[in-house]
Structures are given as C-alpha cells and as structure tokens.
C-alpha cells in the first residue's frame, strides 16, 4: 500500500522485474487510471496492478477499480485476499493475466481452478497478511510446488540472491519482494521508513489482528504494541479501529512519523542493510543468485 505508486513501479520495470501499482492506494478508479498513465510516461516496460480484496472499515468500489484497470489496458493483475473468483473471471474475460497471491496450498489450488495464470504464495515471515496458518516459506513453497501446476512466485522473507536461489531450489519460478523494495532510492515513501527498515532487525515485527482472524505482520512500533495489548484484553475490533485506520497510517507515512500509525514490514528487514537504487538491487540479487548456483553450490557436486 501507498508505496506501490508510479515511481517505484516504473523503476522496477526498468530494472527488468515486474512492478505492481496497488490499486487501492489510489483514492478512486479515475485516480488509478491517472497513475497508470504516469507509469507509462516513465517506462515502456510491462507492469501490473494489484487488487487486494480484504475486510475493510469502508469497503472500496472493487468493481469500478476492475473496470478502470481493464479500460486502461493493463494486462497483468495480481489479485489477493478473499473470494477472488468473480474478479479472476472478469479479468480473464478481458485477456488479463492473473497472478493470485495467497497464503495456503488450498487457496492456491482453488485459485488455479478459477483460472489464475500464476500463484504468488506468501510464507508466514511476510509483511502484511500472512493468513492464520503460520506456515513458513521453507515448508509452504515446496508444499505448493508439489500440487500447483501453474508457475509459482515465492513471497515472504526475500531480499537477496540467497533467497532467490533458495526459492528456485524449493520449486518456485521467481520471487516477490515488498519490504526490500521499500528500502530503495525510488520508493515513494518518507526516508524515515527506509532508515527504519535498515535499522530494524528480524524480530522487530508484530503480528496484529490475530484475535480478529485477519492477522497482519507490521513493523513493531508504539501503535502495534498498543493493538496487541488491547487484543490480549479481548477488546473488539471497534476499540482498535481508531488506532489502525488507513487514513491514520497514511498521515504517518507522509509525515515520516514511525509511531503514528501501523505500517507493514516483514521479517526480512533483518537482512536489509542499505538503500540502493532499484536497478542496483535487482542486478545484485540476480548476479548473487547466479554466483551461488554456479560457484558455491556447483562446487559441492565436484
């Protein structure tokens, strides 16, 4: 959210990777169309749009966003969240390639049956919504690869070439990164958050909303700790809603205030030590993975 805007998406595309605008970062379908045009002004490479369908305090007009995405000529969409069938069907009907992001093998299989062209599978270590099963990538990725026939993107815990090589070993066809891309020169977020990701260690995350069945991994801060304390007291969601509403999070993101609202980060922040350009990051990951596979791992077979 919020970081998935034109500046980052265009930089990722230019680096030879696939960037996604987050549809719901834009306040309206018209604003999304304008953001898509902004990406196109910056790059002629392919990019996609993410549409996340989750319980929300004020549900957005999902159908209008879908129509806007198709009308703007975007041909790759990442769907995420609950009950994606009607959205997958709609996009497929318009020739859009679908990557469905999910957190369990059973949801991967149902998305495949719905017609998803690829699956992005999210381990428990990820930022954002890891689901309620808490299965880590080392187990979840090969478990999915054994059953899913469409290509798989490994998600959660990835930030360097070692992770890319590991994901490929486990049977994935690529990796998906969020937290790592937030700490890049082009990510359109306040520098305070980039520095915080660099400074934070692997344990500096909290899983909130567990008691509401909508777990989210966020960077540990004053708000996440208050939310956890309220959940331990058994408080209903209405009591924490003022702390976690999106507008509050956005205020913090814009102001660079790390403790104003919740913001997502994965365990991989423990492996993030710098703020490179996107191009430097992508090149480094690919060359590191190649070196691991061709040199370090190859030497074990001799």
């Amino acid at each position, binding site marked *: 959210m919020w970081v998935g805007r034109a500046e980052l998406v265009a930089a990722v595309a230019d680096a030879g990777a696939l960037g996604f605008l987050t549809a719901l970062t834009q306040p309206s379908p018209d604003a999304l169309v304008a953001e898509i045009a902004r990406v196109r002004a910056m790059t002629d490479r392919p990019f996609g749009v993410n549409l996340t369908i989750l319980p929300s305090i004020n549900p957005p007009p999902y159908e209008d966003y879908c129509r806007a995405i198709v009308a703007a000529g975007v041909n790759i969409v990442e769907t995420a969240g609950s009950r994606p069938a009607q959205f997958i069907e709609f996009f497929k009907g318009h020739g859009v390639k679908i990557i469905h992001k999910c957190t369990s093998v059973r949801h991967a299989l149902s998305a495949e049956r719905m017609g998803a062209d690829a699956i992005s599978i999210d381990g428990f270590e990820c930022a954002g919504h890891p689901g309620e099963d*808490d*299965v880590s990538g*080392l187990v979840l990725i090969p478990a999915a690869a054994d059953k899913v026939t469409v290509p798989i993107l490994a998600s959660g815990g990835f930030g360097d070439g070692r992770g890319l090589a590991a994901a490929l070993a486990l049977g994935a066809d690529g990796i998906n990164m969020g937290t790592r891309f937030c700490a890049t020169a082009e990510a359109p977020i306040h520098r305070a958050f980039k520095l915080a990701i660099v400074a934070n260690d*692997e344990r500096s995350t909290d899983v909130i909303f567990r008691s509401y069945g909508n777990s989210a991994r966020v960077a540990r801060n004053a708000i996440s700790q208050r939310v956890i304390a309220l959940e331990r007291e058994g408080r209903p969601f209405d009591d924490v809603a003022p702390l976690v509403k999106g507008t509050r999070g956005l205020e913090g993101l814009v102001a660079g205030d790390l403790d104003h609202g919740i913001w997502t980060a994965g365990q991989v922040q*423990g492996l993030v030590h710098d703020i490179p350009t996107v191009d430097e990051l992508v090149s480094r990951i690919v060359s590191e993975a190649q070196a691991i596979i061709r040199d370090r791992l190859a030497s074990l*077979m001799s």
Partner: protein
Amino acid sequence: MRNRVTDLLGTEFPILQAPMGWIARSQLASAVSNAGAMGIIETSSGEFDVIRGEIKAMRTLTDKPFGVNIAQAFVHHPDIVSLLADEGVRFVTTSAGDPAVYCEALKKKGFTVFHVVPTLKAALRAVSCGVDGLVVEGGEGAGFKNAHNIVASMVLIPLVRDHVDVPIIAAGGIADGRSMAAAFALGAEGVQMGTRMVSSQEAPVHANWKQAVIAASETDTVVVTPKSGRMSMRVLRTGKTEQYEDEPPEDMRADFGRILELYRDGNMLASVAMTGQVAGRIREIKPVQQIIAQTMEEFVLTLQSLQSQTGA
C-alpha cells in the same frame, strides 16, 4: 560429498539427526550413522543412566561417527564431559542453556562442539564461547519456541551467516533434498532433520504417531503456550491440543510426565507430540538409509536443475 561439516564430523554427508528426547536412542541414531549421516543420542529425557547404555550400544551397532546432545536444561551430571570422552564420543551438540557452561571443557577434551541457537543473538554468544559450529533452528521446527517471535529459517539462516564464520547446520523445515538445497543456498553447510526421522522405520515411537505425521498437512502443527507463559512448543495438532484451546494447561509438567504413553503406547491424547511444519511434506514411513540416500540424490538433482535454469 565433502565440505567443512563433513570434515569436522567425519561423516559421508552433512546431515544430522535431531536429538529428540526418548527417540534419539541407539536404534535410530545407529541407523543414521550407518547411512553416512550423523546419528545423535539425546539427553533431554534426563535419563542419563539409560543414555550411557545407549552410547555403549552405539559402539556395537555402528563403526561410523556418532554424537551426543547435551540438553543443558534437562540433564545434570557433574562428570558428563568425562563420561562422554570415556565412551569415545567425539562430537557433541549443546542446547537449551548457556554455551559457556560446557564449551571449554569439551574443547579441552578434544570434542567438536556445535551449539543449537534460535536467534542471531544466541549465535553470536555461542561463537564467542568458541564453538566449532552452530545448529540454527528456524521457527518452523518442532519443540521449544519463543511464541512471541517465531523467526523463519528463510530469514534466520542468511542472517546468522552474515555474522559468523563457523559452519551452520539448518534445522527446522528440512525433510528432503530440495529443502536441503534451499538451506545451502541460504548459507547453511549442513542440515538437521527431526520430524523426518520420527517418521522413519527405525524411530522407536508408536506407529500412531508416525501415521499422524504422514497424515498431517503443513498446517497441522500448533505452538502451545501454557498459562505460565514458559516453554511454548510446536507440536502436532491433536485432540490434546484442542483441549488446550478450551483450557490451556498451567504448565507442561503434568503432560510431559505422560509423554511415554504417547511416544511408546500410541495414546495421542496422553501428551504432546513434538512435530515440525515439515510433517506436511512427509508422505511415507521409510528406512533411514533410504531417507538419507534419497535426500542426497534429490539434493544433487536440485543443484543440477538450478544450474540449467541459470544457463550454466
């Protein structure tokens, strides 16, 4: 295959069997050693007199290297280092305690010492004590966990790798050659398997538990935390853990006291069955020799497949 771990351990393969309480006895550990990997005798049962007999039995069951785990929270014997040295043990893993307690004495007697760590902080402490290597346990594994901060192997292994020079054994989530290859890509130089070994033919546990591992999906473990907040552990989801959901135990002592009713008698409601998430990837009870051989075969095939994907 040769690397720093096989050189230190004197084994054919850089694979260790986890020192599971009551399970990692001579029947299982000797099968692992005879298969070219590192069989390890447990002490976390606290039954040290029985363990001494198990170590003696190892000498007759295998002529390959084997090790002993000193589970510091559970075994207290003033002469344990000398006793292990007298039995001809050369490799020890220490766990569940301060690595400083045994490291120096073990090193003086010529042991190769690895310490088991769940965090970077613990890894740095162990290295400062002079250990030869680390067993790094990701949160997906069975057994004791910090329930409030479960860090996955995908992050923990490369993180520790960045900060230490000693070899790392990846533990948690490993059951085959693919997961072993992933662990090596992340920076490990060996792997340890627990749940995969529980579901081997030679594991001295009741068939009910082995079958439950085979039947489990990757979502069928839970981290149980007693009311005391101490000693959270990852175990198989069973009727017992459903009872805990309704009424968490004050602590685990009463149920631990009945653990052999589950392990040996197969009463899955008597206690908890320490099981990792990787249970979801285990589909067959196999002889240890086959597990090790197939792991190594798949490991090499996976590395070859990675080579071809990079066009090398």
